């Protein structure tokens, strides 16, 4: 316990790096996810294909492998990325591939008549996207998206592998140094503390999400039940599209 209190400044520095990494990764992931997800439902075939390739490539490669590849591969193409930058690139590419898939799924769940009726009203494609389609997916994708956020935050610990001195790495350093100096390993206590911190962060995020969802649901609850009506009509008449 004393050790942890003594090491708090150091751990705190590590935690700050973790927060910086997590927040930048979440921010970039969100932006790229929307860009790639919107490209997935674009009118332009080339954009749709690019989007599919992006999503498949980055979703089908384990994040650790992606990270090692970016960090050790970058110098080969003349880039030198520091551990933080490499981790950020890697987390963002992996996160946004998954985020884009969530967003694409959100768009797919919108009945096609939504887009068509906006188009039939003379709305431009960008207006249709911004005013009709996007607002409809935000609430449905929220749970999956914050789930992704939580995984991304947890994944920042992987940055240790390329030597970023984030939270977990500082804990490791403390454990190693103390073991060397005292001959006793404080691993249990230190990693236990690390575990608790990650848990508290992600658990708070989950609580926040649940609260947010409930709030939004309540603000719309007045008309939720009947919301199913048009969808039902669509089910009864599936031949309508043809």
């Amino acid at each position, binding site marked *: 316990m004393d050790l942890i209190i003594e090491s708090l400044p150091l751990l705190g520095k590590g935690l700050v790096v973790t927060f910086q990494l997590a927040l930048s990764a979440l921010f970039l992931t969100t932006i790229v996810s929307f860009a790639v997800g919107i490209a997935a439902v674009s009118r332009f075939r080339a954009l749709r294909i690019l989007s599919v390739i992006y999503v498949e490539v980055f979703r089908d490669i384990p994040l650790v492998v992606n990270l090692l590849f970016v960090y050790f591969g970058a110098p080969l193409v003349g880039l030198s990325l520091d551990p933080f930058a490499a981790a950020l690139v890697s987390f963002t590419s992996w996160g946004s591939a998954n985020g884009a898939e969530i967003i694409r799924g959100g768009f797919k769940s919108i*009945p096609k*008549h*939504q887009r*068509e*009726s*906006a*188009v*039939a*009203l*003379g*709305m*431009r494609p960008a*207006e249709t996207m911004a*005013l*009709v389609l996007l*607002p*409809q997916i935000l609430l449905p994708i929220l749970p999956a998206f914050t789930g992704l956020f939580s995984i991304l935050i947890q994944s920042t610990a992987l940055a240790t592998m390329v030597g970023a001195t984030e939270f977990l790495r500082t804990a490791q350093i403390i454990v190693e140094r103390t073991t060397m100096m005292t001959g006793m390993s404080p691993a249990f206590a230190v990693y236990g503390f690390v575990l608790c911190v990650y848990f508290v962060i992600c658990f708070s995020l989950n609580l926040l999400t649940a609260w947010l969802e409930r709030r939004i649901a309540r603000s*719309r609850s*007045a*008309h*939720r039940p*009947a*919301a199913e*009506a*048009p969808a039902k*009509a*669509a089910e*009864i*008449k599936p*031949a*309508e599209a*043809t």
Partner: protein
Amino acid sequence: MSPVPLIETAALCKEFRGGIRALSNVDLKVRQGEVVVILGPSGSGKSTLIRCVNGLEEITSGAVMVGGRRVDGAGPGRWRQTRLEIGMVFQNYALFPHLDVMRNITLAPCRAGLMTRAEAEEEALRLLGIVGLTEKARAPVASLSGGQQQRVAICRALAMKPKGMLFDEPTSALDPEMVGEVLATMRRLADDGMTMICVTHEMGFAREVADRVIFMDRGEIVEEGTPAEFFSAPRTERARQFLDLIMRHDA
């Protein structure tokens, strides 16, 4: 009666990917103020035809003219202009669920720069008044019944001040007790002189409101005439069979 038809198709063909021929050589002329009802069995190309008129489907060959001007092949700008002039009502209403009734109606005319938000809201209230839904102006869309939603959808299209309206089975998704209120709205629109193309299975509406009935089968216009001619003395065998089937079903 203006000499140039408001909506015209010439030798219109539509083939879907996979070689499905949905329309072959469809010639259609709809005059200003005319109400045309399109009848025909499922899969005969009724929806495809009216969707070609406002460019929701890309045509394979032939021509689409609106107000005497060729619209196909002239790029998305011309189609957009056409859609501002020709409203469309879908079977499933397709109101925007994240917006209230008022905003559903005012969104497109505001975006298109046809009117200011205040003007659009005034117009929306006027239209809602006509269809008897004034008190629903601020209601969320999903709190409305199907019939009410469809009437709002008609208002939404009318707020663009279109010269013509396309209806694709506007009552087919409704519970029977709500069909009447939507048909009444359409009837009123027709009385006010709106140019309309309606795909519908409502024979009563076709008989009483249509100036002209068009019968389609397998992507072709098989027969057309006044409702009186068509319903009492169909000239083709296919139309007779179709009417027999419908009448038996309705009885």
